[in-house]
């Protein structure tokens, strides 16, 4: 580059050297339209098919330019995590920073390569535009600034959870999952975009965004407070909840959902138990209503209702047939998933508020329903599903064929159960996995080897059990066979005693339901297999043991397809009787908790009205 001394050289005629420019074209002409660059931050595009209406774009928008607009024609499904909201942009406020793009959990939003906004005269007053996949003018422009790995601000990967290795965990019933430490919990919590999809999806509408936020602020006590607003089975749900929140989590659309369940568990474990009790007692009524409520069954639904009612000032007595409270959570879920000391804590919080539990009191035997009707202002039936269903295939009535719930209860009660070296489980749900894995552990302890075969009607794609459960069961050496329909239990004749189980004959399943959606399995008889095993366990579903009601009450109650008929608030057709939990809804802990709240609210209203009338 030449270097001139500007001070000395040059004169007044120097500019004339540039006269040649008169012969050149001006740089401004021609101004041909050209596309903006590939990364240009133009106007918004939003793919409505991908967008789930989570409103994260609205949250990160620094000028509050985004408003979520409800589009009634679009589907809305809280369980799937889809809202029919779509972002509308106020271009009077937008500053085109594209943070909405970079933080969009699904990647639906992007900016186009459109330079200029033109509109009709009639639209002149409005900068407020609802962009869809075609942009804001209805004429498609190519994508400019879109989701890229470089600029993605969503943390897609879940913080790793320490777990016992299969070889390590199979020998005992200790908990598999280690839980987060405070550092991990804060990192995991900080991934949350606070969209609230989890809140919508949760049956009991837990304030998950709030407690996650409290955890990332390093305040587990506040998290516990948020948790207890909606769920007194916090330890339980922190471990074995079916976590619909995580299925709906917006981060899960491209990555792994936030570990909401583990975060709840972290908060509960991080706070001292006495503190938890104090927090749970916040807001308890300081008066007594003088009303008495009886709850039949100390499971999640019953105790949740008891928790609510005692806080509202009513006197609550829970009648429990077993020696300990917790219901199916204690007697149906193996210890490696749900340690009993945590159930004790949940129960302890509830009893510390004044709920009385009468253990080993079986309604129908020790006390009758008629007595309850007489002595209490309201009664809640939360008796769960304790009777295992049978396949009713030939041989299933043998005493050598066990039901999963019975076996799990015996193990939980530490009754001596003799398990042979090879076992067949019929069923493909979570209970089947629970029983298979429990049996596997017992086998490992007794024989040093695992031989459990699970046969399920469903094929792997439609399995009812959690994928995680299936994966872990397989890791522990359990054989899982899908699409096998049980036909007959085979016996080896013995001379003196009852026959000994030899195996199970199955056919391959072609389809399970008929055209009307009724249960009518079709089999491929040519594909027959015989699975060898010395014991068969049926884990194909449970039913409620309703005989405790007594004949008279059973007559007076309305039933629907074998289940007690209740309205939306859990009321039966008798004014003093409510029913909730698994016996009404089918098995699910968190739904039972939600149902407990529901009946408690209904009973509270009922008792208040009664009071007014009196």
């Amino acid at each position, binding site marked *: 580059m030449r270097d001139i001394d500007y001070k000395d050289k*040059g004169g*007044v005629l120097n500019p004339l050297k540039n006269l040649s420019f008169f012969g050149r074209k001006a740089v401004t002409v021609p101004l041909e339209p050209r596309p903006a*660059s590939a990364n240009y931050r133009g106007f918004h595009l939003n793919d409505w098919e991908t967008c789930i209406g989570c409103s994260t774009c609205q949250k990160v928008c620094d000028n509050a330019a985004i408003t979520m607009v409800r589009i009634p024609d679009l589907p809305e499904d809280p369980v799937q995590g889809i809202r029919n909201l779509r972002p509308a942009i106020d271009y009077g406020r937008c500053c*085109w920073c594209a*943070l909405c793009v970079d933080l969009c959990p699904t990647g639906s939003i992007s900016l186009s390569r459109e330079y200029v906004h033109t509109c009709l005269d009639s639209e002149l007053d409005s900068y407020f535009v609802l962009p869809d996949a075609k942009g804001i003018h209805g004429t498609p422009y190519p994508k400019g600034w879109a989701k*890229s790995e*470089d*600029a993605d601000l969503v943390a897609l990967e879940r913080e790793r959870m320490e777990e016992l290795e299969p070889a390590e965990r199979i020998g005992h019933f200790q908990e598999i999952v280690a839980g987060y430490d405070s550092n991990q919990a804060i990192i995991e919590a900080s991934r949350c975009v606070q969209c609230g999809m989890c809140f919508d999806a949760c049956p009991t509408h837990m304030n998950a965004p709030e407690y996650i936020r409290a955890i990332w602020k390093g305040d587990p006590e506040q998290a516990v407070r948020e948790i207890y607003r909606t769920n007194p089975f916090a330890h339980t749900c922190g471990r074995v909840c079916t976590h619909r929140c995580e299925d709906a989590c917006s981060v899960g659309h491209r990555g792994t959902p936030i570990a909401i369940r583990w975060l709840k568990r972290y908060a509960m474990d991080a706070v001292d138990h006495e503190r938890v009790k104090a927090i749970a007692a916040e807001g308890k009524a300081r008066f007594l209503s003088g009303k008495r409520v009886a709850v039949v069954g100390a499971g999640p639904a019953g105790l949740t209702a008891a928790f609510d009612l005692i806080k509202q000032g009513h006197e609550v007595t829970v009648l429990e047939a077993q020696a300990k409270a917790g219901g199916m959570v204690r007697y149906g879920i193996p210890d490696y998933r749900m340690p009993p000391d945590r159930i004790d804590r949940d129960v302890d919080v509830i009893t510390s508020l004044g709920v009385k539990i009468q253990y080993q009191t079986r309604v129908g035997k020790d006390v009758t329903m008629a007595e309850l009707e007489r002595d209490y202002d309201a009664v809640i039936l939360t008796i769960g599903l304790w009777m295992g269903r049978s396949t009713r295939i030939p041989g299933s009535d043998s005493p050598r064929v066990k039901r999963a719930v019975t076996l799990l209860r015996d193990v939980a009660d530490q009754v001596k159960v003799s398990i042979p070296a090879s076992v067949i489980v019929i069923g493909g749900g979570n209970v089947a996995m629970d029983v298979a894995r429990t049996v596997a552990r017992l086998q490992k302890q007794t024989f040093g080897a695992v031989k459990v075969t699970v046969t399920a009607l469903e094929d792997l794609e439609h399995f009812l059990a959690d994928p995680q459960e299936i994966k872990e069961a397989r890791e522990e050496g359990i054989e899982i066979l899908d699409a096998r329909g049980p036909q007959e239990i085979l016996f080896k004749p013995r001379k003196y005693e009852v026959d000994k189980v030899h195996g199970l004959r199955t056919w391959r399943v072609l389809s399970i339901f008929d055209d009307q959606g009724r249960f009518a399995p079709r089999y491929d008889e040519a594909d027959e297999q015989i699975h060898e095993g010395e014991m068969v366990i049926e884990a194909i579903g449970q039913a409620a043991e309703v005989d405790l009601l007594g004949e008279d009450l059973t007559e007076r109650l309305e039933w629907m397809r074998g289940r007690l008929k209740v309205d939306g608030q859990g009321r039966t057709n008798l004014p003093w009787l409510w029913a909730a939990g698994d016996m009404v809804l089918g098995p699910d802990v968190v739904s039972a908790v939600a149902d407990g709240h529901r009946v408690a609210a209904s009973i509270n209203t009922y008792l208040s009205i009664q009071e007014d009338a009196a």
Partner: protein
Amino acid sequence: MRPENYEAQRQPPSHEYELNIGPNHPGIEGNYAFKLRLHGDTVLEGKADAGYLHRGFEKLMEGRLWIQNLAITPRICVPDPVPMEVSYVLAVEELCGLEVPERAQWLRVLQLELSRIAAHLFTFGGHAATTGMYSTMFWGMADRDLVLDLFEELTGGRVYHIYNIPGGVRRDIPDGFLDRVKRTLDYLESRLPDYDNLLFTNQVFVQRAKGVGTMSREQALEWGVTGPNLRATGLKFDVRRDDPYLVYEDLEFEIPSEEAGDAWARTLVRRKELVESIRIARQVVAALPKIRGTIRCPIPNPLAWSVPAGSAYTRVESSKGELAWYVVSNGGERPYRTHVRGPSQMHAVQVLEKLSVGARLEDIAQTMFSLDACPPEVDR
């Protein structure tokens, strides 16, 4: 900032008159008024009035998440927005202790130097315009647009790039981008003789600009002058060399300076800095293919980001002088306080007021533009 708000109105004597320059006039790059008291065409007193472009950015930033503030920072100075971005993210990175990947640092330097080129083309074009030489200004603006094309490709925005993010940058270079940078730099360099003919060796301009708005080195230091304005008084102070940030230590460049301290010297320093910036940009273009790796270190979820408590003062050399963000965090999700140390605050208020005393009316616009002040940066 309005003078009438802090000073009682005075009636000028009968031989004096008041003249209000601005708030819109070609002497400065934004809305800005300069109130003169004159006797004939000699200026007796000048009062800067910056209050026409107050957007309350510093206050606004206290109410926004750390990352939302990225969109505000470049808007503080339109002609040279990049140092604003870089300085802010450097401050946040310092508070968080983030390690910025090397490639991102080189990309930031490229962006900073391209921005300096664009800003200088704007400024000496503008200075020429204040003396009536509009061709230079048109050329400057047209050539600046070529740099903006590069910005559009690299950052997605022509003026407000919002390209930097605490921890790195938001995009890597597109395919073939470095070739296009090279071509644009070659073109800009080839244009320099044209600019020289039209302006820098044109005695009409040289004689007009010499001796206007002169300040001594001592005055400059006393008044807090930095950047090309300070270097035009002979002091070779440049943050890039004297307090290096990013990868400036690894780059070769000169610090041009002049002795005279007048409008001519200031513009000439900019002309020479343009050459140095082209030189730096070329080094970055040559080095970038060899520097691989990520362009951003992992950062927390923006919605959850709490920056550790503390304060950071990070200065960079903008085209106008030393620019810094002072950022205070109380450990929250939003800054507790932010403050811009903008060079224009000194240049457009105290320096201009002092330099205008005794100057002639026709030189005022020239003095203003040669100080290269940016009004939005004066009153944030």
